[in-house]
């Protein structure tokens, strides 16, 4: 498979020590997402920090991009509500999930890198708990770009979670042939 120098460079930026593991899937995922999200100035990103018996696992999802802030915010707001509704319907080993106050909803979210040209312009979050050990922190953000492609180093810098982005793009790349489902924040 042939990928542009830019795609390869972005992929290497997300790979620990430039590792080659799943490089083709990674490059394919980045390419697909660059095309899908294009140069719209607003993108909606979901981050999920999930505690379970195995510890803490983080996920990132690039959901969509929009030409206007209003459209992006409306989408993000509705998406956050839909994710909450979805989460509260999940069964956790026979145990329900419950919503708790959101003021402490984001202890695991990475801060954007300094001098990042993309900015967070909207933020919505909730925390769902099940029993004493299972927690989910779901954060939906609108990112305002600087007019460049949504998928690029500036997006990586504002999200600042390289390994989670790596997993997301590999997941997108692996779904290209239809053998795997595309990554979605609606995950049980």
């Amino acid at each position, binding site marked *: 498979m042939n990928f542009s120098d830019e795609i390869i460079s972005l992929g290497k930026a997300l790979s620990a020590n430039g590792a080659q593991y799943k490089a083709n899937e990674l490059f394919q995922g980045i390419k697909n997402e660059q095309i899908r999200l294009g140069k719209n100035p607003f993108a909606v990103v979901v981050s999920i920090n999930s505690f379970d018996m195995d510890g803490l696992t983080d996920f990132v999802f690039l959901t969509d991009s929009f030409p206007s802030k209003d459209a992006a915010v409306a989408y993000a707001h509705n998406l956050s509500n839909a994710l909450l509704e979805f989460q509260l319907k999940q069964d956790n080993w026979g145990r329900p999930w419950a919503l708790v106050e959101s003021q402490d909803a984001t202890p695991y979210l990475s801060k954007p890198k300094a001098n990042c040209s993309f900015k967070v312009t909207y933020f919505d979050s909730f925390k769902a708990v099940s029993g004493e*050990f299972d927690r989910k922190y779901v954060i939906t953000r609108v990112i305002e770009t600087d007019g460049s492609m949504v998928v690029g180093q500036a997006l990586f810098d504002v999200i600042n979670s390289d390994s989670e982005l790596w997993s997301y793009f590999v997941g997108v790349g692996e779904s290209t042939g239809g053998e795997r489902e595309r990554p979605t924040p609606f995950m049980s």
Partner: protein
Amino acid sequence: MSDLSRALSICTDEVQHHYRAMGGSNQYDGFMNWHIPAFVLLIYQGKVGSDLLPYRAWHKTENLQALVKLKLEDTEPNKETLEEYVESVTSQIPRFKNEKEVSQWLNFVKEFNLAP
């Protein structure tokens, strides 16, 4: 949800965050997951330093102890809520991979006086 129940949940989150986030870098030799709720319960009853937990659970965790104490100190004592908490933890502990978690937790519960 009562104030005590809410506070127990928040404190469990704080202790879980301390020991299980950041790749478990704050865990000491011999750490077990049941130490998380046990830590909260012992502080609730003013038993900081109890030998029901390893010494290292109390060593250099003064800030965490103070945080848990602060969040619990104004709650109304309620034995039923404590029993529900213990019962809830007991039903989840078997999901941890180490089989010793269950026996050690049950032993802790046996030794621990639930009276608030």
